[in-house]
């Protein structure tokens, strides 16, 4: 008896601690909940890709390169936590490939589209004399005044190739310029020795090198070299992008979804209110109808809810409106196991068993129905998750998770608490507390 009571108190303390942790972490913005676009704001863009001109074995590489380019562009615009990924269409796969871009906080679709649709730009600039250590300001932002245009840009590029430094064997990208470009480059080599040449790609500095006319290249030519800190994969990607001149794979905008900040915030607020009120009304009903087992159910449900919230925080689960709906629904269903057990216990008590026995018997005999109904829920979640679109997946994940966690909370938590309380049902008051309903 004591053991069970210790378990019960430990569980209660754990539940309270976890609950407090969730609350405190949100107040201090540590590990905040990840919100989907429809609860915050942002744009969701789907592009169709045209892989027809790419041989089948090169498609994966091209799509990977495409994702990398778009990711970099989006990052360059300072979007927080963007998601860029490619996926295959078709009901069970096998369709055309798509590029999907999620831009939280970007509500202007036109701006989002222009972010994505540009051609990569290559630019070489000399660092002005005396400003070598003033290229960035305190916050690591680029200081444009430190740089001097040379007129050498990506337009003058005729080709790019991956090579390896003769001495260090590090990967680098060799550039071939057309005649005009070559002339400018040669001028730099001759006139600007000991200055540094910065390579800009899409407006970002990706390399700074000393102008060195003695640098020999494997190709034997004397085009430019980009050799700063790339691994072989990055060098390959860069060379591919520069060669194609634009994106690795042509893309066309197919579908868009954009949620403005007011709507998103409203949805979040409404979702939270609905969850809280729903939970409170449910608790009231449970306590009034099922009395002591009802109270235990409410405590178990609270622990269930806090566990779910912590899981959302740490997995992390991106919350959407559909996800909140799944959560609310799972709270309602989590009650189911508790009700089953309570009804069974009532039967056992009516049959004259004492409290502890009634609890154990109730749990054992209710298990069959609990197991069967939860299996049906899990089947539905798995299928939904496997087949579904983003919206459906969000719901299925929360719902399925809810089923699993609620199984735990009903069987473990409820049982422990009921046993710990250990009512004497051979007196009328005890019987009253353990039964339920209007006249039992």
């Amino acid at each position, binding site marked *: 008896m004591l053991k069970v009571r210790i378990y019960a108190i430990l569980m209660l303390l754990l539940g309270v601690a976890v609950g407090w942790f969730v609350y405190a972490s949100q107040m201090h913005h540590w590990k905040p909940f990840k919100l989907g676009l429809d609860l915050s704001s942002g744009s969701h863009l789907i592009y169709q890709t045209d892989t027809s001109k790419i041989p089948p074995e090169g498609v994966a590489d091209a799509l990977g390169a495409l994702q990398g380019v778009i990711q970099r562009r989006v990052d360059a615009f300072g979007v927080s936590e963007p998601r860029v990924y490619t996926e295959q269409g078709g009901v069970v796969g096998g369709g055309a490939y798509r590029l999907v871009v999620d831009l939280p906080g970007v509500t202007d679709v036109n701006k989002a589209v222009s972010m994505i649709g540009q051609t990569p730009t290559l630019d070489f600039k000399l660092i002005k004399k005396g400003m070598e250590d003033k290229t960035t300001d305190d916050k690591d932002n680029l200081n444009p005044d430190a740089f001097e245009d040379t007129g050498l840009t990506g337009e003058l590029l005729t080709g790019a190739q991956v090579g390896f430094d003769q001495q260090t064997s590090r990967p680098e990208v060799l550039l071939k310029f057309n005649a005009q470009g070559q002339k400018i480059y040669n001028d730099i080599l001759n006139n600007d020795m000991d200055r540094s040449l910065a390579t800009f790609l899409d407006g970002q500095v990706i390399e700074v090198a000393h102008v060195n006319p003695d640098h020999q290249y494997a190709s034997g030519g004397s085009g430019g070299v980009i050799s700063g800190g790339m691994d072989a994969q990055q060098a390959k990607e860069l060379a591919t992008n520069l060669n194609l001149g634009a994106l690795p794979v042509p893309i066309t905008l197919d579908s*868009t979804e954009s*949620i403005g900040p007011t709507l998103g915030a409203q949805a979040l607020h409404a979702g939270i209110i609905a969850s809280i009120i*729903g939970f409170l009304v449910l608790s009231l009903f449970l306590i009034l109808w099922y009395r002591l087992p009802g109270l235990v159910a409410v405590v178990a449900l609270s622990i269930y809810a806090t566990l779910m919230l912590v899981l959302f925080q740490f997995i992390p689960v991106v919350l959407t409106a559909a996800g909140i709906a799944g959560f609310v629904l799972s709270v309602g269903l989590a*009650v189911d196991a508790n009700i089953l057990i309570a009804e069974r216990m009532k039967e056992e008590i009516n049959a004259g068993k004492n409290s502890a026995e009634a609890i154990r018997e109730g749990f054992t005999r209710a298990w069959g*129905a609990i197991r*069967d109904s939860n299996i049906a*829920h899990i089947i539905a979640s798995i299928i939904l998750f496997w087949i579904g679109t983003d919206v459906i997946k969000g719901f299925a994940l929360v719902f399925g998770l809810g089923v699993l966690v609620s199984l735990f909370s009903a069987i473990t938590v409820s049982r422990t608490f009921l046993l710990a309380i250990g009512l004497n049902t051979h007196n009328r008051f005890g019987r009253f507390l353990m039964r339920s309903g209007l006249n039992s």
Partner: protein
Amino acid sequence: MKPMNIMQHKYTLMLVPGIVSLCALISLLVWGLKPGVDIASGTNLQLAFPDGRPTVAQVENVVSPLGLGEVRVQPTGTDSYILRERTLSNDEKNALENALGTLGTVKEENISIASPTISHEIFQKGMLALALVSLCIVLFIAFAFRHVSKPVASWKYGVIAIITLVHDVLVPVGLFAFLGHVRGAEVDSLFIVALLTILGVSINDTIVVFDRIRENLKFNQDHHKKEPFDEVVSRSVMQTLARSINTSLAVVIVLFALFALGPVTTKDFALTLIVGMIAGTYSSMLLAAPLLVIWEQKQKKDGK
């Protein structure tokens, strides 16, 4: 005193689900469902006019010369409109907003543009999911009840479960056909998710009753008690009544909070689930159980 055998009134009991299904079916056939943008392709633009909302006629006048086809204009909130039309390109959307800009400042609140490719795929995925879940559930029931062969074979439980599920899904579908006609309610991928949830959840109720029947039959078998099948069924239903109603009540309470207070995007979802849950609860008692009894009696009559 022998407990009341409600299965004596089995035909009366089946009147409720019978009539409701019939109404739902008629509603569906007459009005059909209005598909949302994400399963039928199209554009949904929710635009706010903070300087004061123009009239519907003004909006229509501005929009019609743009040649965008049929445009449905629906007011929402205090100063917004929802414009519903075919799939627009980004340029066409910009042209539309510029044109509307002549009536006052326009702010985008929500944009949904779904191309035929994407929406077709979403629709097919939804249909596939519905088929798969139904199949899995039926198989699951047949498996769970495989040992219960007397007096009704286990596969028959599965068949009755399907019939009950069809009813449970038909009711909310019929409701939304009616609501589509009355207030232009649309069914989108979230509606399909709701139907799938109903399938997975209201089968619960049916399982509980079947489970109790199975248990009682086994008890009778073990104790060599002879009890007519319809009385076993009746007793099982009465025993599980409290649990069925209370579980459904618990879920409906939270769903109602979601419907009344929750986000706009999930209101219809919550409504679908509420209706489906209620249908699922009464269908176990008033449809599945009577059907089981009728089938058993038919078996006896045919001299099994």
